[in-house]
């Protein structure tokens, strides 16, 4: 089948989405042209904007997106990236503040390990409940998110509260615990590269190793995998849970280490949930997650510019962002269907 039909369908959907968004903006009294220009410029207007804003915003989405993609590959429905992210951030901050290691070559790896371990630990509860008791992980991972959010709230108001005791946040982490900037005069930090490295590693793991094959086999069908008699599904499910939680935990600590330098309530605007869209849009392919995370990062950076330059209020921006995400997912699904028909013909 020729590539023309999907392209035409995508273009049609794009035009339709833009038309709906433009109509909404016009109804609200905002100029669609100015708004779209601002959206695009805010995300891609210059190298600096792209690197310092879009890629910086893409980083937590990239890591959580990879966490979700890996879990979903094994049919482990981890809805808990948000909570694992908070657990990772808290553990990283605690180690950074309380561990007396002055050298970045010691402290940074220690904090990264702590973040990953805490994320994995957070995911181990739903993993145990699923493998031991058969409790569905959709509910348990989701509920663990709330536990993590309240734990974060409690800790920054109590034990981890800054020394001067004024605001509900931790002290600033020491310089040795901060991820270095990747490019001079930008805000892009090493965390983005870590994300890319994990994406490549996951891709190699899934496609080139027996462990990755098992994850894909379990994802395709747990029963078939077990009936084949070659391996048991339980350890594979455990591995998917723990690795997914560890990556999500890293996402939280990397955001603190690279950007905020403090932990506080409301660290994440829901990256762990957006990550599900990021992963699904990438069709759970680790390398494609890099691209979809950048697309979502661009949308988010562009949305902020839409407020600044076009005067579109935040609620409108959020609505339009959601509309674009829906449209992209719909187009993606449409292309899948078209592709299947094409291959049958």
């Amino acid at each position, binding site marked *: 089948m020729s590539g023309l039909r999907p392209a035409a369908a*995508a273009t049609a959907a794009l035009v339709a989405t833009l038309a709906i968004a433009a109509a909404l903006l016009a109804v609200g009294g905002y100029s669609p042209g100015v708004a779209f220009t601002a959206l695009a410029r805010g995300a891609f207007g210059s190298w600096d904007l792209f690197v310092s804003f879009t890629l910086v915003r893409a980083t937590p989405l990239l890591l959580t997106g990879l966490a979700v993609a890996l879990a979903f590959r094994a049919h482990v429905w981890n809805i808990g990236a948000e909570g694992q992210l908070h657990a990772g951030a808290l553990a990283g901050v605690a180690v950074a503040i309380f561990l007396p290691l002055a050298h970045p070559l010691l402290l940074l790896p220690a904090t990264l390990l702590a973040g990953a371990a805490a994320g994995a630990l957070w995911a181990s509860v739903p993993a145990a409940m699923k493998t031991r008791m058969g409790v569905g992980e959709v509910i348990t991972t989701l509920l663990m998110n709330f536990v993590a959010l309240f734990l974060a709230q409690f800790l920054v108001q109590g034990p981890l509260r800054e020394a001067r005791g*004024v605001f509900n946040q931790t002290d600033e982490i020491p310089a040795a615990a901060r991820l270095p900037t990747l490019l001079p005069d930008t*805000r892009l930090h090493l965390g983005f590269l870590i994300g890319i490295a994990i994406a490549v590693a996951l891709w190699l793991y899934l496609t080139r190793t027996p462990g990755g094959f098992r994850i894909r086999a379990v994802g395709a069908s747990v029963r078939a995998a077990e009936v084949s008699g070659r391996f048991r599904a339980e350890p594979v499910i455990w591995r998917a849970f723990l690795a997914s939680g560890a990556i999500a935990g890293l996402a939280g600590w990397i955001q603190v280490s690279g950007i905020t330098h403090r932990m506080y309530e409301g660290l994440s605007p829901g990256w762990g949930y957006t990550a599900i869209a990021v992963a699904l849009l990438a*069709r759970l392919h680790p390398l494609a997650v890099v*691209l979809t995370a950048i697309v979502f990062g661009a949308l988010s950076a562009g949305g902020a510019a839409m407020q600044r330059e076009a005067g579109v209020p935040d609620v409108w921006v959020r609505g339009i962002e959601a509309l674009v995400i829906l449209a992209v997912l719909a187009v993606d699904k449409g*292309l899948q269907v078209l592709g299947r028909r094409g291959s049958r013909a």
Partner: protein
Amino acid sequence: MNRHLRWLPFVSLVLAPACGGDAPAADGPSVALLTSGPVSDAGWHAGAYEGLQLIGDSLGLHISHQQTRTPAEFDEAFISYAEAGYGLIFGHGFEYQDAASRAGEAYPDVTFAVSSGSRPSENVVPIIFGLHEASYLAGMAAGAITRSGIVGMVGGVEIPSAKGTFIAFEAGVKAMREDATVLETFIGSWDDASAAKEAAAAQLRQGADALIHNVDAASFAFFQAVREVREDGRTAWAFGMNRDQNDVAPDVIAGSAAIDIPKIFLQTARAWQDGTLEGPLFTGLAAGAVDFVPNPAQRGVIPPLALRQIEEARLLIAERKLEVPRIDFLEPAAGNPSGS
């Protein structure tokens, strides 16, 4: 692999118009505002937005506003505005202090004004609203109208500026009614409507009949809780905070402890234009920046005698003869590390 990337043409189509072109430089002197909540809250953020519009209308300056979602966006927003040529950028809330300090060092020619800020420097100007003075007067009114002798306070996040208004409110209550019980709840959020309503309802159940809040968008639900207890035949009054909220719920509000944020923002912008802006900026009752405003729709709720006592206290505070308890959260002035 190709299969997975089929949507790429779609994405590039979205982004095609983007490439090329610099961000539009602000035309002439421009003023920007950052808020961490919606400007439709009829309170703290709304007042700031009105101030921004006043600056645009009165001084003819170009204005822009962004609502930031997470603290990670603070730096980004400051940088964006500074790069776009904005000369005065308001960060409306203590939470902007750290990011404003960083931006202040990176952009020495730009002035950053931080509402309830704590760390002044050459070009970072904390604006300290003496809201506790107005809150004290509101407390006096609450002390005068409570019959049960139980007064409630529902706060957002327990930060010094919010806590300070409650300490002053409580002192005001006690000044009128020494034996009063004062309940205090912080719900941990400025916008969580259901938590605010629950907290208010709990205090009402404990017998409170005069309640003040210090939340943002959640205040609508706070007023609703008072309205609902009225429907059960009880008498209860609410007090507005941060902005004159008397018209937000005229049926249940006895008065508001209000900051005239637009006025202060306009003064700040004028001083910035004249090159006379220096921080930190303290502004309270004496400057007419804050006040207790009885609700004109509910005349008579606050007894005339109490109104006279409140008036006396107002004069004493303005003349610095009456010290209202407060929390000082200003840090010592920072040196100029760059030495420039």
